[in-house]
């Protein structure tokens, strides 16, 4: 994303930014399940290399959004879905986007290495080569020495790292991470966040990251999106102008706290709708 020289931000520049080909471009994206409207007019552009975090009340359609972008669900007609500059059907994205669902979904009969290389196997890669590559990546994912362990022998945090490694091994420019640390305790989670930023800065992929934790959203993202209560849409979008690499002390800085207050206000407003008298 840093290919152009930085100049003053003008209207012309803004127009250029628009043409500077987002990797993912969603316009008026909606999704209805029978009676339930899950998404209602999501507009979202993601630039290559960007780390975008999405927060919103539970049930607002975050996972549905990911299911569409990973190709598993088609959006309602009238939705525009553009990927790498081309208008596509959701199903065209199957195999194009690396998707990490909310649960680790590891296969119980495969050890750590063989779980990690599953996407490569499906791509038709040479299995021995894929295994060697996975072996090399183990230390980076904190799994050194666990190559031959099976999922039932691993802790929750380690299983999640295996799932992340599997996602990284599926080398696609766009990565979708759905609450990857949602089930972890606070300490493990903070460690995993810093670690994810390290890994991300190494691999430089575009990341779309769902969380229900505002701290996490700010700490990780270049940009935070707040979604409305169901039917989901983008309510608020804030750039996170905090320097990288980011350390643990960042969360107590005034900029961080100010941003957090704004975002929390927006989220609270939406959560109230879910619990309010007119809630479905």
């Amino acid at each position: 994303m840093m290919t152009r020289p930085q100049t003053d931000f003008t209207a012309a520049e803004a127009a250029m930014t628009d043409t500077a080909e987002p990797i993912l471009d969603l316009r008026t994206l909606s999704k209805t399940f029978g009676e339930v409207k899950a998404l209602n007019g999501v507009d979202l552009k993601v630039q290559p290399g960007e780390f975008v975090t999405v927060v919103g009340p539970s049930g607002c359609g975050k996972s549905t959004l990911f299911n569409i972008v990973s190709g598993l669900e088609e959006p309602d007609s009238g939705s525009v879905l553009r990927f790498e500059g081309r208008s596509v059907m959701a199903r065209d994205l199957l195999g194009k986007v690396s998707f990490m669902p909310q649960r680790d979904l590891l296969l119980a009969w495969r050890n750590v290495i063989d779980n990690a290389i599953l996407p490569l196997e499906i791509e038709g890669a040479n299995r021995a080569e894929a295994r060697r590559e996975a072996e090399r990546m183990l230390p980076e994912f904190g799994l050194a020495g666990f190559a031959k362990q099976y999922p039932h022998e691993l802790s929750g945090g380690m299983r999640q790292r295996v799932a992340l490694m599997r996602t990284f091994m599926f080398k696609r420019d766009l990565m979708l991470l759905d609450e990857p640390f949602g089930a972890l305790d606070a300490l493990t989670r903070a460690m995993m966040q810093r670690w994810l930023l390290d890994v991300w800065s190494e691999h430089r992929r575009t990341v779309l990251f769902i969380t229900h934790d505002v701290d996490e959203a700010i700490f990780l993202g270049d940009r935070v999106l707040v979604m409305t209560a169901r039917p989901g849409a983008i309510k608020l979008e804030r750039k996170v102008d905090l320097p990288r690499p980011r350390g643990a002390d960042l969360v107590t800085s005034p900029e961080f706290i100010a941003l957090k207050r704004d975002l929390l206000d927006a989220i609270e407003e939406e959560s109230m709708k879910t619990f309010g008298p007119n809630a479905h």
Partner: protein
Amino acid sequence: MTAVPAPAGSFPAARRFGAVLPLLRGVLALAAVLAAVELIVIALGIRPYVLPRPSAVFEAILRTPAAYRDAIIRTGLETLYGFAAGALFGIGIGIAFSRLRFLRETVFPIFIVSQTIPVIAFGALVVMWFGNTILAKSVIVFYLTFFPVTVNTLLGMRAVDQKQVQLLKSFGASEGEILRKLRFPTALPHIFVALRISSALGLAGAVVGEWFGDTTGLGVLLLQGMYAENMVAIWASVFCSALLGVALFSAIGFAERRIVFWGGSDA
């Protein structure tokens, strides 16, 4: 890469011992029961015509070991052939049913109806068709084994986590790859449950099948014992049948622990 977690080193030996342990326990329990029966029969003075002493039964077996050995081999082969065919057919057709709705809706009801035919009636038919051959008994065993395996394979193929299916799809997997890499492994624990049930059913089928006419086999020995009113011979055949059944059951259990090592089910 070389740093293997500490306990893993002693693991294989421990696991092997763990597999033998239940067998050992079973043998000890059996020996204890037989000893108890022996004592009770002697203490209460139960006449051999009602219940012979276990030691008398063993003596009978040891007097003509070849007859019992041949019978075990014969009945064992009948069971094994029929069971293997039934298992393979059941797994294959179960997978086909899970994929092809048309086949499921047309053929499955026929299977169900076929299972309502009593095995005795079916046995008579089979012996008329195939004569007093090993094949005839194997067909009866097949008839008894394939159905539970079919049902459980179908069940297992459907027990798959839809989220895992979606994950594989997101990697670009085809239906065939999802079947091989996800559905079939998920079905394996269910399949093994059916195999264990089927092995017992199949052995009973082989023994009963021999009653329609044969010259060797455990069923034959049972029948001969009955006609001769020889209680000891009957019990000797029963013991040999049990031995065969336990061996079959243990073999399946052993295969299950190796293949479904992740402990999909422990039913």
